[in-house]
């Protein structure tokens, strides 16, 4: 409720902070509902996000507002179907490297296309929607992502996905159509990422291909893992925590913040395999 009423109460600064954190929540939750249970480590978040954002920049003011967001979802979904068909038979780090390479390939191809063919290096976003429209769009997307994650956990698809993460060959032997489950869920998570990208684009007045930022991919992974990727609450906790930390530290101490982010990732991997939420649960279950 507080989040719905937020734009009325908050000053523009806090509204914009809440917007950024909600976008992170949407990204981290939608990353985790695929990569958490399936254990396929995707580093393509930046590519889906970038594609959505660039779509908004291109179609811009020519179409009414929610359409670019829908378009972003479709483009993310389409990219994921293509990538998934090619790459989901790669396991472990090969999949991670492939998705990372793909995001970079998309960025450099776009730079090459924009400078060589259209002769521009970026695009202006004219006539962005009202700030509160953006806020509610992102709030809806974050809410939908959480709802999807919750429903998915209880559904047959969610169990099938967890089965794939535990042992893919066994899951296949048990009659699960692993390819369909993997690609389907991957595309669903990419649709959210594309939509978030499209909805966040109007925050910048100027966009260039650098919006295909591998940093977005890493930050999403770190948020989800920090909170705990196997739960629904985990990525939300991680996104809020890192979102606030980056707001306080990123502008003033940029390099220290990024350095700290790297250290956080190392500590989480070594000491907190189930994240902050896992740690909290463990503390509650262990009698003192």
């Amino acid at each position, binding site marked *: 409720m507080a989040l719905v009423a937020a734009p009325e109460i908050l000053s523009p600064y806090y509204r914009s902070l809440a917007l950024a954190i909600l976008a992170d929540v949407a990204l981290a939750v939608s990353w985790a509902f695929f990569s958490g249970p399936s254990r396929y480590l995707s580093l393509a978040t930046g590519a889906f996000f970038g594609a959505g954002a660039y779509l908004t920049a291109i179609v811009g003011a020519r179409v009414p507002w929610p359409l670019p967001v829908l378009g972003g979802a479709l483009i993310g979904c389409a990219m994921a179907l293509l990538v998934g068909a090619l790459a989901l038979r790669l396991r472990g780090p090969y999949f991670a490297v492939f998705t990372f*390479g793909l995001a970079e*390939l998309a960025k450099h191809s776009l730079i090459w296309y924009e400078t060589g063919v259209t002769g521009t290096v970026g695009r202006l976003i004219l006539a962005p929607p009202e700030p509160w429209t953006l806020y509610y769009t992102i709030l809806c997307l974050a809410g939908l992502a959480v709802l999807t994650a919750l429903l998915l956990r209880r559904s047959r698809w969610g169990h099938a996905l967890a089965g794939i993460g535990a042992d893919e060959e066994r899951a296949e032997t048990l009659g699960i159509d692993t390819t369909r489950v993997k690609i389907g869920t991957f595309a669903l998570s990419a649709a959210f990422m594309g939509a978030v990208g499209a909805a966040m684009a109007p925050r910048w007045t100027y966009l260039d291909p650098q919006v295909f930022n591998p940093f977005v991919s890493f930050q999403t992974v770190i948020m989800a893992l920090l909170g705990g990727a196997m739960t629904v609450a985990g990525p939300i906790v991680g996104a809020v925590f890192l979102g606030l930390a980056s707001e306080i530290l990123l502008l003033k101490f940029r390099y220290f913040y*990024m350095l700290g982010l*790297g250290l956080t*990732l190392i500590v989480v991997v*070594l000491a907190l395999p189930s994240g902050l939420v896992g740690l909290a649960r463990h503390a509650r279950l262990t009698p003192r």
Partner: protein
Amino acid sequence: MNPTLLVDIVVGGLITGGIYALVALGLNLQYGLMRVLNVAHGEFLMMGAYLTYSLHTAWGVNPLLTLLVTGPASFGAGLVLHRLLYARVLAAGEAPEALESRSLLLSFGLLFVLQNAALLIWSADLKGYSYLSIPFRFLGSVFPANRLVAAGVALAVSVAFYVFLKRSFTGKAIRALMQDPEGAQLAGINLSRVHGLCFGIGIAMSAVTGSLISMLFELTPFIGLPYTVTALVVVILGGLGNVVGSLLGGLILGLVETASVYLATSDIRLIASYGVLSLILILKPSGLFGR
């Protein structure tokens, strides 16, 4: 095509390729043996380059002599990192895939730490110095002497490592572990010690390449990642764990890139690297020379 252009491409390609081969060899050693896909590999190259730059500009040390500092220093750093980070993950005894993903995440963390530490120490400005930039004529083409020296040293280190792997007792232990980890341990080879050694050697190779590169190009803290990607392409091209494959793969990629820059434009270079990487991963993940 006139003969001078051909010499330009072949010699230029071999120079670039020799450098690629050494970076890739270091990465391959880490992956082939430990299944640690070290995406921070290029960051050690960047650190080595800055170390040489600082030693040369602050105290006027000859850049080639700084190899004697960057090599051992990075080897030591590799041993410590292995002990602190990777040995603990490997000791957890999980399924290979979970293990590979966790060590991959660790090296991403390392990448952030090293790159931003370099930004804090040396700032984002371009840094560089000039060394041996005298022209050297060869079959009608002209090459700067520093490139020939850098490529020569890189190839010499690669070949020396190959001989070490084939002839020495430790080299045999490394090969035995690559072939059959369990059998080798039954024969009394200390897995953790050899892993640490190889991680150290791999990182030292990257840092030494960085020292050599600092003689040729200007530096920023962001030069590491493109070399990591190049090394990945070479390793995947030549086959994981395949030392000769890495050497040949490095030379091939050097030739292809140089040719594409001469014949097309230089913008296409990164697109070509990532494109080749994606294609090989899809079509033949075991590498060109893989079984």
